[in-house]
């Protein structure tokens, strides 16, 4: 807040100091992770920092251990993560743009009930659902191995996307609500159909909303571990880190490098989409 005449510098410094102290463990922990990925062993204090690029080279070559021949393809793993994240983002964006428009503009029967139901669904324990979702998955899984892999991608995207949809629909409805009716009427009076109005007039106007919903869905798909490890047959970065942390041969700084790689897109989004992030989360998320 700005009110320059009455602001006292001393109290501002005090507040900054308090918040900085509260943030120290978090900043420290995250920066040590990044630092460790460039070091020969885990960095706990600056004395143990011996710079090297070896971890990153090994990671990209897929060499998991210093000795031995355990190999993984980190590019494929990253690609898997990306497929899931993009799939979730695409699905959630399309569904919530359509449903948000309908809930905002059309007065159909049961509209209010649908909206209450969406809110209650959001408060519903995901863990109670995942069991039923898994049984459904088991019952519908195809036998053919290739088809199975494809199906597991398809399924994990649908299941994870479904989790995001209630809140995204609410968010989209809010964006549609903010647009005056007159825009739509003038389109309809000029002889355009409802679909044309939606596509030509409404969509360009809610672009910021679509961007926000897509971004949140992408982050959700990217960060997910539970759904990925439960349904997906292939590995993603999340399950890669999960499974390598306790194994005997794993080299801790190398896992730190994988973690940093995994964190990278998040940081990029963080920097380019600050406003959207700070605004959109007021819609509320689980966590």
């Amino acid at each position: 807040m700005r009110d320059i005449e009455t602001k006292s510098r001393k109290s501002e410094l005090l507040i900054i100091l308090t918040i900085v102290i509260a943030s120290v463990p978090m900043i420290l922990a995250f920066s040590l992770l990044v630092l460790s990925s460039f070091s020969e062993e885990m960095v706990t204090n600056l004395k143990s920092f011996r710079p090297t690029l070896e971890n990153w080279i090994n990671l990209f070559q897929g060499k998991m251990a210093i000795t031995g021949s355990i190999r993984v393809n980190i590019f494929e793993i990253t690609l898997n993560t990306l497929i899931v994240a993009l799939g979730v983002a695409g699905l959630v964006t399309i569904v919530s743009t359509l449903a948000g428009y309908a809930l905002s503009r059309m007065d159909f029967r049961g509209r209010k009930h649908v909206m209450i139901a969406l809110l209650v669904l959001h408060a519903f324990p995901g863990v109670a659902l995942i069991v039923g979702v898994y049984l459904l998955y088991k019952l519908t899984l195809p036998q053919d191995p290739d088809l199975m892999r494809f199906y597991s991608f398809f399924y994990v995207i649908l299941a994870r996307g479904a989790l995001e949809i209630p809140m995204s629909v609410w968010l989209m409805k809010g964006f549609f609500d903010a647009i005056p009716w007159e825009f739509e009427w003038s389109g309809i009076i000029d002889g355009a159909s409802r679909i044309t109005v939606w596509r030509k007039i409404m969509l360009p106007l809610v672009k910021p909303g679509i961007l926000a919903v897509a971004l949140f869905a992408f982050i959700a798909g990217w960060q997910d571990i539970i759904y990925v490890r439960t349904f997906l047959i292939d590995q993603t970065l999340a399950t890669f880190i999960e499974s390598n942390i306790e194994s005997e041969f794993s080299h801790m700084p190398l896992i730190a490098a994988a973690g940093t790689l995994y964190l990278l897109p998040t940081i990029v989004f963080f920097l380019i989409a600050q406003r959207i992030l700070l605004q959109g989360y007021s819609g509320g998320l689980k966590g």
Partner: protein
Amino acid sequence: MLVMVLIFYLIPLVMTVYLSFTSMKNWNVKYLFDLVGFYNYHRLFYMFQHDPSFKAIVLTTIVFILITLVVNVFGGLGLALGTFFLSDIVGSKFRLLWLLPRIAPIAVYSLVWYYFFHETSIGTLNSILMELGIIHQPIPWGQIIPWGAWSVIIFVNGLVGVSFGMIVFTSALNQIPKELVIAARVDGASAWTISKRILIPLLKWHLLYVLTWQFLSLLTTYCHLFLLVEWNLVNRDYGTTLALYVYNTAFLGGELDQGLAAAVILSVIGVSGGFLTLKLLGFEKMMKRPRGDV
């Protein structure tokens, strides 16, 4: 959308409730029609009375939710008020920083704390304390029961939840007319007095909103805990909440039928909590809630 809600919410829901009345084990379809009535619920209750590790889980759930809730709500309030009194640029930088736990990939976030609380001298916390000469042996923080394990899980989840309260409160604070604050400033009130006498009373409704919403979230969250327990950073019994218990019984082998009974109990608490929230806050206000503008 309706089809997806049907497939991924309603059908699984019915299945979960139904399965909790069967003797389902290890996802074996042959148990699908083996109805056992309320046997699973009875056994869960019996376990609560006689099985120390299940008792620990229930106790952990209660302690975890209560303390983390307090940390989240007051941490969020503190951050929102603190950044409110700073200039916009500095304030939003801090708010952004505190979003990091929420948007960082779950595996990376847990990994970061895994290194931080690690039980050997590699762990950052142990290393710092040893350097300062406060301790001489590395301490396995998460294995000290109950409070060591509880502290770790509360700390890790507390940081994630703070950002939710922070954002709701910040958006609410920005809607308060600036004149109120400036008038108080002119009269010589400090930031602390302004917060206590003017801002917090105006935030009552939002406090309630964050409190109930965060309660429901904590009741059902388990992904961070799952990794911390799996990586052996925290004690198995005192690091597991009911939601995680359900997941572990379902997917890491074990008494699936029993986990399902626990899942149904959780759901009943969750859904009634959800309806209570709606009643408490008034649906009309909720209609305006997720507008996406701060």
